[in-house]
């Protein structure tokens, strides 16, 4: 007993007091990740999106309904803006998550409500900030107004100034929110980078949870839901191709691809300037994380899975509604690969980063 006791004390003493000199190896810390993500990814991406909205607004102001080229240029600017949105949708925390901002619900609520848009335009009396108009505004509303008919028909429709004004209102509704977020990040940047620990409101928790959330949005809302692989409140729903993102402009797969690329760059730490900085990938390397889903390194496993998913999405030659109807097996295969990533993030990455899901205390079960 006595030996056991001395042994215990010795070990505990070792645990508590022994120290080494300064470490020669340069350590990568979460603050390095947050710094790179904030300065080279989040802030420039928001400002790009903000600029895209400005360009779109300019295009709307200069719109000439008698010129096809003017419509085409407007349509193109819209698609550029929609693609740009895909790069910021994972950052719905901090300023973007504030209750009066909520970018995702206000900017990309799809499928959009056609009849509500039409009645809003017709009555010319609407408040875009009320929740009931979430599904009648934002990018999906513009997608509808700008693409729901042939170009000739659209040009005729758009002679009606109230349609153009509705789009302008939608854009300014988005722009005011994004302007706010861009400005608020000036101050929030230091909060985000300086945050320590892993509790509910730590940057680690927020960053991780919204990374996962954005990914699951691709898998479920953008893919499984229209393909008929999902449920709504437990009820299996049949395939419904009208639920895809970018329905009218037929850009659903392009948008998914852009969303995946944005998450991949975030994962790898690739900034908007093209410089490959500290990303989640580097952090996982630092932690020597091993994948429990496939053989080997977790950092490589997730990077590979991004490549696989992107390739599968890019392989489709048509738009998602067409592929769902004519090529369901490839859609299923893509869905399976998108799903494979989930435990890599949800189980493995979360474990290694000790991200707290638990609100309360834990005793480790």
């Amino acid at each position, binding site marked *: 007993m006595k030996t056991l006791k001395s042994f215990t004390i010795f070990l505990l003493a070792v*645990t508590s007091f022994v120290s080494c000199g300064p470490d020669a190896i340069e350590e990568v810390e979460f603050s390095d990740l947050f710094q790179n993500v904030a300065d080279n990814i989040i802030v420039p991406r928001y400002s790009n999106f903000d600029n895209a909205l400005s360009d779109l607004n300019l295009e709307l102001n200069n719109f000439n309904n008698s010129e096809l080229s003017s419509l085409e240029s407007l349509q193109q600017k819209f698609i550029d803006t929609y693609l740009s949105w895909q790069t910021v949708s994972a950052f719905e925390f901090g300023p973007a998550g504030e209750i009066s901002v909520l970018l995702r619900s206000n900017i990309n609520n799809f499928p959009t409500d056609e009849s509500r848009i039409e009645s809003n335009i017709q009555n010319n009396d609407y408040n875009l900030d009320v929740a009931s108009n979430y599904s009648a505004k934002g990018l999906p509303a513009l997608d509808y107004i700008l693409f729901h008919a042939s170009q000739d028909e659209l040009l005729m429709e758009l002679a009606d100034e109230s349609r153009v004004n509705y789009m302008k209102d939608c854009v300014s509704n988005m722009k005011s929110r994004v302007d706010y977020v861009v400005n608020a990040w000036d101050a929030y940047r230091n909060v985000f980078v300086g945050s320590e620990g892993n509790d509910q409101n730590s940057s680690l928790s927020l960053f991780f949870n919204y990374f996962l959330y954005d990914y699951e949005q691709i898998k479920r809302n953008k893919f499984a839901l229209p393909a008929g692989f999902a449920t709504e409140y437990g009820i299996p729903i049949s395939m419904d191709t009208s639920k895809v993102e970018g329905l009218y402009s037929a850009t659903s797969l392009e948008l998914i691809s852009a969303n995946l690329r944005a998450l991949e760059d975030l994962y790898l730490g690739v900034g908007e300037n093209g410089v490959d900085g500290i990303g989640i990938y580097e952090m996982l390397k630092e932690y020597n994380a091993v994948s429990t889903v496939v053989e080997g390194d977790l950092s490589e496993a997730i990077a590979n899975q991004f490549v696989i998913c992107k390739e599968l999405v890019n392989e489709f030659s048509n738009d998602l509604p067409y592929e769902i109807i004519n090529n369901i097996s490839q859609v299923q295969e893509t869905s399976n690969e998108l799903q494979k990533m989930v435990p890599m993030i949800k189980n493995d990455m979360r474990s290694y980063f000790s991200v707290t899901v638990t609100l309360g205390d834990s005793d480790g079960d």
Partner: protein
Amino acid sequence: MVINSNFNISKISQWSYAETSIAPLVVFRIIFGLMMFVGILRFWLKGWIHDFFIQPDHFFHYFGFEWVKPMGEFGMYTIFGLLLISSLSIALGLFYRASSILFFVLFTYVELIDVTNYLNHYYFISLVSFLMCFLPANRSFSLDIWNNHEKILKSIPNWTIGILKFQLGLVYFFSGIAKLNYDWLFDAMPMSIWLQAKMHWPILGSLFTEKWMAYSCSWAACIFDLTVAFFLLSKRYRPIAYFVLVIFHVITGLMFPIGMFPWIMILATLIFFSPDFHEKIIAFIRLIFNLKQATSSGHNSLALAGFKKKFLTGFLLTYVFFQMLFPFRYLLYPGDLFWTEQGYRFSWRVMLIEKAGTAFFYVTDPETGNRGEVNNCDFLTPNQEKMMATQPDLILQYAHIIKEEVESRDLKNPIINAEVYVTLNGSRSKLFIDPEVDLTTLQDNFKPKDWILDN
């Protein structure tokens, strides 16, 4: 001493009814009441009453306690208000019997609402507050005897303090026994994962990535848990054992999100110290608050005889044996305990495994054959989802929750399957349960769950 080299029931019985100073029990009452007050207040201020009992749409029930339901916003805040009042009353020794019963009943009720909130620490509090209902902890230095001096007790039977020491020692000893497994001792898992996560700690951080460090910590924790209670019982080793205990709890408190537990244990284990020590504490409190020593008639005794004594002896023995046997019920189940978790709870398996799961549930409409993946956040909070994904009985309960939900939306007799991937102590994620089995056809019971796949 409870543990005697020649184990002899009659000797223990003799010891149990021999008298000792009431001081340690009184100090324990004050500490327990105050710690509970702080703990409940902390729970309230963190907004957890809302997060755990008001926000969720569904709750996971303990087997046999399906009838326990949360009471809504007003009800839950009232209950926590009563918990605050009763814990403070326990500390003050005011209406002690009623307060301790109220605290035990309400605290246990709150814990029974949702299995996903289960913590060994909460079970521990329930047990201690249960024991406190029977103990004469208010019979000295309390408001109950303020104007009732003839009730004052100077000495009480040994069992009253012994049972609390037993309960405390049991927590350490069994969490030590739980660590006697291959992963913990010979693979330093999950200690390696936990230390790795703290690699950026100042000074110690650089050691945390070393394998020998993980082994040292694993073994040290195991040996500490197995032996500390015995050293605390020994007068000679008590001070050094307590010193080690404080260091142990401070370190674990800094490393893990285990809330109040370390501080509760540090203070609660003071009960192992001598009556002298506790009388000094009481004298010190008297000095600070300028309280007079009440004089008692001095001849009170709790000595029992005849049937009452036999009954008490029977009750104590039953409690002790139940506590010692219940953690071993897992032996009745086949398979790896950490994987199947059959007989896992209520057994002091504290900070023992690292388990994570991802659960994909699928509902099939039997009429149309339509099949879709359930969006778990439609029904569960993130915390509930996380807890559910690694525990088979909760997976089954969740399937029944989904069934109820879809049937209320007019889809009758849904087929529900689950594809669950679980990783245990960093091992490869594996399918956890049979993905082909229709979970709606199963009911939870104490029989082995043959639909859990092998680890």
